[in-house]
């Protein structure tokens, strides 16, 4: 499977994350999966003239392009000219190249939330008119338009995340190379369901604190970060706590809130990232699929039943009270 990787209005962090894929032989792993990198900005030998020759050969049909991976948002400004990113050596805006190449590709992948929705680069008043390949925040459209379908008939595959998890990218590429990926494998926002059908909450190591609404109050506290610290893990689609990052990590395990980086528009939440917005003391964002009345009832019940140990540990940065040791056999 011939893969071409381009970077535009982003930070390159999804590529850097990709290199952290959990394998003892990254280059061999891709090759064994049938992934042939035609060119990648961080990994390939070819520079300058050789790259331009490759791009031209894809556009004129000489080189088959199975998957076009785009990382970074697409910069349409100023005034629709795309001049905020001119591809070096070409005198042409990157959005021109992406449009030309996308129609040649069997699959088009948006790697990261910038390429999927616009992401961080579309923050503030979006000075560069940044958008995703097929979305602008949660509105279909983007650079290629809502009706775009790649050669395979699929829409742009949105491997959203800021950054993406390396194995979200590799697993998608491997499934595509094996011809084992269909429209049924995409969620309604065209994210691969193998990670987007989970919530960040699933597998969170702070689950006991969540259950008892024993909440962290300041950075480095051990408690649940939903009530005060802005954590959106109970609403956000991703498997970060099932498929950990860099060995044993995740945002919540690192001591900070899930900021919903796989979701469109996460960059402008309308509140401070590290503070939970509340109305009458109740968080505005409640756990997905949970009716508000139930949440309120359960929260007040569980708060009244919080074990002292859990309550004290929640506001400390290391265990101040240990779980009791049962003197009898566990039942």
């Amino acid at each position, binding site marked *: 499977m011939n893969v071409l990787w381009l*970077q535009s209005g982003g930070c390159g962090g*999804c590529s850097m994350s990709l290199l952290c894929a959990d394998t003892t032989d990254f280059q061999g792993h891709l090759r064994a999966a049938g992934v042939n990198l035609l060119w990648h900005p961080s990994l390939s030998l070819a520079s300058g003239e050789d790259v331009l020759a490759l791009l031209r050969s894809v556009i004129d049909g000489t080189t088959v392009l199975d998957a076009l991976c785009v990382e970074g948002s697409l910069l349409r400004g100023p005034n629709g000219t795309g001049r905020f990113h*001119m591809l070096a050596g070409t005198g042409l805006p990157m959005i021109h190249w992406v449009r030309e190449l996308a129609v040649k590709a069997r699959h088009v992948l948006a790697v990261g939330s910038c390429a999927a929705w616009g992401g961080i680069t579309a923050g503030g008043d979006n000075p560069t008119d*940044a958008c995703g390949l097929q979305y602008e925040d949660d509105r279909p459209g983007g650079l290629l338009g809502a009706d775009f379908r790649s050669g395979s008939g699929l829409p742009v595959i949105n491997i959203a995340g800021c950054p993406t998890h390396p194995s979200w990218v590799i697993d998608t590429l491997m499934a595509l190379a094996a011809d084992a990926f269909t429209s049924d494998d995409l969620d309604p926002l065209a994210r691969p369901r193998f990670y987007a059908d989970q919530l960040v909450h699933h597998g969170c190591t702070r689950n006991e604190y969540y259950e008892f609404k024993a909440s962290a109050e300041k950075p480095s506290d051990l408690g649940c970060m939903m009530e005060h610290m802005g954590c959106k893990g109970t609403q956000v689609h991703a498997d970060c706590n099932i498929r950990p990052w860099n060995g044993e990590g995740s*945002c919540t*395990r690192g001591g900070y809130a899930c900021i919903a980086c796989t979701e469109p528009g996460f960059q402008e939440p309308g509140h401070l990232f590290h503070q939970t917005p509340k109305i009458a003391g109740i968080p505005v964002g409640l756990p997905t699929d949970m009716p508000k009345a139930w949440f309120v009832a359960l929260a007040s019940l569980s708060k009244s039943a919080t074990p002292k140990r859990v309550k004290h540990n929640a506001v400390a940065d290391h265990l101040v009270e240990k779980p009791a040791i049962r003197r009898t056999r566990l039942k």
Partner: protein
Amino acid sequence: MTSRLLVGPFNRVEGDLEVALEIEGDRVRSAQVNATMYRGFEQILQGKAPHDALVFVPRICGICSVSQSVAAARALADLGGITMPPNGQHATNLILATENLADHLTHFYLFFMPDFVRPVYADRPWHAEALHRFAPDSGEQVRAATAARQRWFTLLGTLGGKWPHTQSVEPGGSTRPIDAAERVRLLARLREFRAFLERHLIGDSLEAFTALASEDALWAWHAQAPLRGDLRFFLTVVQDLALQGLGPGPGRYLSFGAYAQPGGQHALARGLWRAQAQRLDEVDTHAIAEDATFAWLAQARDPLHPLHGLTRPEPDKPGAYTWNKAPRLAGEVVETGAMARQLASGHPLIRDAVGRHGGTVYTRVLARVLELARVLPMMEDWLLAIRPTEAFCVPAELPDEGHGVGLSEAARGALGHWLVVRGGRIANYQIVAPTSWNFSPRDAQGTPGALEQALVDAPVRDGEKTPVAVQHIVRSFDPCMVCTVH
């Protein structure tokens, strides 16, 4: 006869880069460096709550993400008068050093060395070995280094939740306390990386290498086993291709000081090294100003200190050729990076090598490897200095009015954030990144930036459209274009 060459897209640099060359005979006569992409972080940050900067700034750059976080956290700490507890300092330094050393490793194995496998070198005696070690997709050492890098970054899975774009770096310390058992595991990871460096890169103990105090000692050490380890292999190539003199910098090398210690000192001292005078000057950050004469950005009457800096695109500005401003220190062009840190902190090997050859392709790469070998033992010390039962973070109370400055050292050099807050919101946020210095355009006086100077006189072979010497020089700076313009 003069001809022109437009070189790009560059790869194996972070972000997109274009270089316009004017060539006379077989030499570059002058160069213009174009950072081709603008995203507008400084505009995006306007009006945000100050603490929200910690979500945005790491995402300036996927390779120096933590460095941006550390600079922002320091600027916020300066704004709020916050001092982090010693554990927070050690954890922050460990997080930053993990990224910096990973970047040095990535640069050496994935970005820089692969250029020696190019067919243009097929007649050199070391070419087959270069292919074996450094071919980007199949090279043994490239693959081994990628695996070592993956394992190395598991340090940040524990210390920071993930990399890049951790949010664990706070003005008051680190949100991720480390307990005693975790510390044992992290120490094992440091030793694992030490083993990789000693077996593959240095081919000797780290201490034996860092003890080399002069160039003569270095070359004697090289002669013992010219192909053992990838550093010695690089030195073999340096000798053969005479890279000692290729791509000389401006002769002034800036470091803000790396790895602030609880006592206020830096593990690698700060300063401005003047190569010709062999003198270390104090760094006066008030003398920093950014000149936008040749950037597609609005230009004030005079160059502005970052605290009063201005970032407003003017895409049709006549004469401009890049999105990057030209930072100057007291009006002077300076270079920054691992070499500057090693010069400022006084390592005798780098001071000797730069004294003889100037700051060149050779000394830049050598300084990075030296830094890998010097900093890893420091990390072992910082980890041992953590007291697991004490605090890692204090809450950050930030005032509604004020300003803050955050200085740090990214892998690529001196990084500064300048922040002004009014009414509880960011009124101005200015970032001067390492590659903003190194790849700066000309200033109002017409003085070229550090890379633009380094490219002058670079050799161009017959028929070359992407001259290989130009590529060595460009990549020897380990540029990060996404940081440069942000």
